[in-house]
């Protein structure tokens, strides 16, 4: 290890000029709404431990327009994350005899099926009340 490594000066705005860098940072930025989303889930679990009334209060809070907008942003971020993540999978997962394109296709199909399964399970187990209660 060098004792005094030279660090080339770089401005914080290095990513603004190049579209590829902007796309890269947008991809990394998907982590922020998804982190907040994970916090929402943790809150929901905590409210669940407090009983049915507290859990219902949490559900009602999530009906607010602000949270609906947030979840729309989170869905968009998650779709962007999924697309860019699966794009990278063939670079990390190399299987002899299977082309990178097939590995990517396989993951894309798996992602469509995976999200559809979660949605299907949700629709089966949570009968919609027909709008805000």
């Amino acid at each position: 290890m060098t004792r005094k490594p030279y660090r080339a000066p770089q401005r914080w705005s290095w990513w603004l000029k190049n579209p590829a860098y902007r796309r890269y940072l947008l991809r990394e930025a998907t982590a922020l709404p998804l982190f907040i989303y994970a916090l929402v889930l943790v809150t929901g679990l905590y409210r669940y431990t407090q009983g049915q009334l507290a859990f219902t209060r949490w559900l009602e809070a999530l009906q607010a327009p602000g949270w609906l907008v947030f979840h729309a942003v989170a869905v968009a971020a998650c779709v962007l994350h999924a697309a860019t993540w699966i794009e990278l999978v063939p670079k990390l997962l190399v299987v002899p005899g299977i082309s990178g394109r097939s590995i990517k296709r396989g993951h894309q199909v798996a992602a469509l099926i995976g999200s559809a399964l979660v949605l299907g399970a949700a629709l089966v187990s949570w009968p919609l009340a027909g709008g805000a209660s």
Partner: protein
Amino acid sequence: MKRSNEPVAWGLFGAGGMLLALVGPGLVVATGFLLPFAEPAAAFHAVDALIAHPLGKLLLLAAIALPLYHTVHRLHHGLQELHAPLPHGLVALLCYGSATVLTIASASWLLVR
């Protein structure tokens, strides 16, 4: 030389990234748009039934903990790449520390049921 924690952090980051890619969009639509407008009692009992099952506990913990570790890893490295004038060690501690604390809290809440 000090051994790096990076392989562990990257393993959790990778697992969380894969989970979010495979079921993330469906999960966000389910809990963000369907669950709040479900019949409240039915929603509570469905969640209760899921948590009552050991496999349900495991799935929920994975759905909470892995995305937490995935996102804090990206936020931690993103702050570094933007040259945020923050002490690197403190940011790492806050990021991975909060993910770990929330994971332990979630696990304990799941186990009380």
